[in-house]
């Protein structure tokens, strides 16, 4: 037996949140949105029916990247932007593990943009939690690839000139099979979204709107604060018409000319509303939904944009290895060395 086949017997013992917390002191700024995300993850883990020793958190660089140190699991805090690549190797080598990647907007979409899109297109079994606070925190306040155009920072006193990425649009464009958004002010929504991601087979991207109270405080307040949430967050629920606002008075329709847009339900009638379907093979409608808001100051969809089945990459890679062993038997080194033309002296 190979040394790396799964080492653990059944059944999975029951755990509590405390079991999933490491003994390390959490060192994010007081009031940081990361605390609520950490709490949601630690609360969710006991419900997933998995073992701590079979779970690995991999991160890159940034505030979010400290996450693995606080989980009582295996963990790797790696280098800037590379976590999806490193996690890909780990997930291919060890399909028995549950591999999570924790990343931020700079880490995942700037320095690591290439690794993110390729991990997504391959559909390798990793759960990517993208903490989007639209700012560089650890380097103290430079604009990020998701900062709004015109962002005034320490080095852009006249406003930034860079068109921001929309992470959901990027993920959909990269052929991701699971794409979702949640935010740090709603623990229940986070837990449910993380659970859905975990249960999906393949690469999953969850964008989490996360408040950086030091360098970009209130970036999402216009949509996530309790008093406006009802009117500003558009919950996506599979199989249901997309509605929001007080008494569901607002809705989303698919206009053949103008794409997805917001309407008063009273004006169009309930039957005209777009029924959300996560499983559409074509990502086009999901992409239109990702463009519904131009930023976190307009009604913004949250929930699962897309969840489709596609061959998981690790299964395919390991399937070829298994098929080769089945067909040709386990490798015979002596025979390999003699596989070319040989002669005797």
């Amino acid at each position, binding site marked *: 037996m190979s040394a790396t086949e799964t080492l653990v017997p059944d059944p999975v013992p029951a755990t509590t949140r405390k079991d999933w917390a490491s003994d390390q002191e959490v060192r994010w700024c007081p009031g940081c949105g990361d605390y609520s995300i950490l709490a949601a993850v630690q609360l969710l883990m006991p419900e997933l029916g998995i073992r701590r020793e*079979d779970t690995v958190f991999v991160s890159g660089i940034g505030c979010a990247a400290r996450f693995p140190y606080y989980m009582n699991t295996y963990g790797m805090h790696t280098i800037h932007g590379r976590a999806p690549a490193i996690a890909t190797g780990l997930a291919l080598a060890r399909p028995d593990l549950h591999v999570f990647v924790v990343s931020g907007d700079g880490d995942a979409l700037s320095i690591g943009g290439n690794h993110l899109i390729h991990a997504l297109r391959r559909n390798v079994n990793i759960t990517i939690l993208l903490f989007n606070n639209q700012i560089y925190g650890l380097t103290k306040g430079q604009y990020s690839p998701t900062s709004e155009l015109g962002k005034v920072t320490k080095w852009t006193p006249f406003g930034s000139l860079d068109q921001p990425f929309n992470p959901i649009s990027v993920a959909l464009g990269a052929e991701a099979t699971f794409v979702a958004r949640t935010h740090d002010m709603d623990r229940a929504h986070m837990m449910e979204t993380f659970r859905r991601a975990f249960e999906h087979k393949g690469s999953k991207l969850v964008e989490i709107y996360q408040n950086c109270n030091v360098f970009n405080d209130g970036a999402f307040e216009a949509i996530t604060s309790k008093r406006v949430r009802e009117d500003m967050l558009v919950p996506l629920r599979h199989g249901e018409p997309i509605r929001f606002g007080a008494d569901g008075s607002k809705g989303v329709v698919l206009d053949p000319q103008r794409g997805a847009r917001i309407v008063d339900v009273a004006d169009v009638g309930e039957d005209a509303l777009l029924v959300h379907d996560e499983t559409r093979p074509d990502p086009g409608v999901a992409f239109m939904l990702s463009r519904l808001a131009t930023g976190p100051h307009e009604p913004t969809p949250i929930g699962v944009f897309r969840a489709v089945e596609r061959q998981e990459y690790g299964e395919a890679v390991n399937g070829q290895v298994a098929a080769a062993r089945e067909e040709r038997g386990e490798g015979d080194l002596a025979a390999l060395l003699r596989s070319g033309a040989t002669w005797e002296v």
Partner: protein
Amino acid sequence: MSEQVQRTKSVRDLDRVVIRFAGDSGDGMQLTGDRFTTSSALYGNDLATLPDFPAEIRAPAGTLAGVSAFQVHISDHDITTPGDAPTVLVAMNPAALRSQIDRVEPGATVIVNTDAFDERNLAKAGYTSNPLHDGSLDGYTVYEVPMTSLTKGAVEPLGVKPRDAERSKNFFALGLVSWMYTRPVDRTLEWIERRFAGKPQVAAANTAAFKAGHAFGETAELFDHAYDVKPAALPKGTYTNISGNTALAWGLIAASQMSNLPLFLGSYPITPASDILHELSKHKNFDVRTFQAEDEIAGIGAALGAAYGGHLGVTTTSGPGMALKAETLGLAVSLELPLLVIDIQRGGPSTGLPTKTEQADLLMALHGRHGEAPLPVIAAKSPSHCFEVAIEAARLALKYRTPVILLSDGYLANGSEPWRLPDIDSLPDLTVDFATEPNHVDDEGNASFWPYRRDPETLARPWALPGTPGLMHRIGGIEKADGSGNISYDPVNHERMVELRAAKVAGIAKELPDVEVHGDVDSADVLVVGWGSTWGAIDGAVARVRAAGHKAAAVHLVHLNPFPPNLGEVLKRYPKVLVPELNLGQLTSVLRAEFLVDAKAVTKVRGLPFTASELEQAILDHLSGVLS
């Protein structure tokens, strides 16, 4: 036609011959040279090869830029280089003749395909007059053979279209040269059948062309005799002809088998390393996973991730890719995980000479990282030696839990030589003891796991695989507290960790064998120090100067960091030290800095290996004090 072919012409014995096949990139010269090599290997010669081709897949036909050449040295005795100057040149067109003629020995045999010497091709090659008629080849023995038309004549009766028929002319050349050097033909004919099994008409055409070339030698009045290079007296055993990249791939598989760890290759395509990816991907039944990453960084990243999961993680690249891997190498040094990084060096900097050889990545391998990040560096000395060094690289990585850089180069990668197959039972046991139990008791008396509690002997840290209950731990690039591995910014701890990592790598020297001095061990006036692929040329050059009555010795370094324990003493034993390198003196400066010896560099950066005669001259110059 069979081995018992009737020979009407006499055969003269030669002790060795150096043949260079040259033609257009599309003429199949690499295939021709490769097959001639294999049939010579099967015949029992010792040999060495030097493929020499352009970076362009198909440069404009007939131009100097498009010339592709393959040199092979066959011998009835032990040889270590592909030969200095060819004694036979096969030139398929004017460009091949023009670009190669200066390399061949005066008086050499030159076989030309006269059909290609028309005005258009002569002009493309830059000839203003036809060299076959203007006397410029007077110093050579020239055989003018209309290969294209003879090939067409042989092949067209099979129903092959004229355009396709012409494409078999390399097999005509192979047949002719096989006749000239009395190579056995049956296995080549069998090989043609196998190689073109899916295209019966091509197989038939190539067979007809090969036979026509062979028959031409026998019957044309051009040649009055053939030559034979008898089998070499090599040590008993089973041999195969192997290139450096294949040997490396097989060495990695062997290391995976001996360690009982699955092999994981994370790689991005780059010349001249890609063949390792190609070769390994054929052998998935050895529990091999090959991953073509999105870039060089992801290649090493995925390999490191797989290593964390308990695979033998490998990444393969060449110079530009090596530069991109530097940051991840720093992480691997910090994480102290086993990882193999294989650099098939090529001409640099930047894109440089992608298909040509060089040894200019040595200092990058030794030092090219941020922070104090020492790691073991080893280099292969010949194509078949790549097998052994791949295993050695894995052994060091697994035992000391460290990334290891293995240096090869374009010459070793594509060159080939006969290899006596090793006894599988003699390969080292690389089994790893993974951590399975806690190794520490905390203040409250609870058992816990400290990922950086080192083995006192090797200073290696324990390797606990994810999936192991009770040993959950976090590792990362931030400085870790000695022992517990928790984040630590303590200044004294950082200094201790830097020193521990350095001591671990330096300590490898304790178990390395002393370097062996060859030649005039006790009386040499000059010591030649080599590393990597210069071994063959150094070996040949030292033998020649000793044969001429001079006192010379040589050492060859496989381990470049750390050095073998006796190296300093050996260097100081001889009055003069000469270091041939395919760079501007990188090892030389390391030896001078480390051992305070007055080592002199002999350098060459032309994309080609040293010839033995170049080094012979350099040694003589150094002995006579010419070399300053």
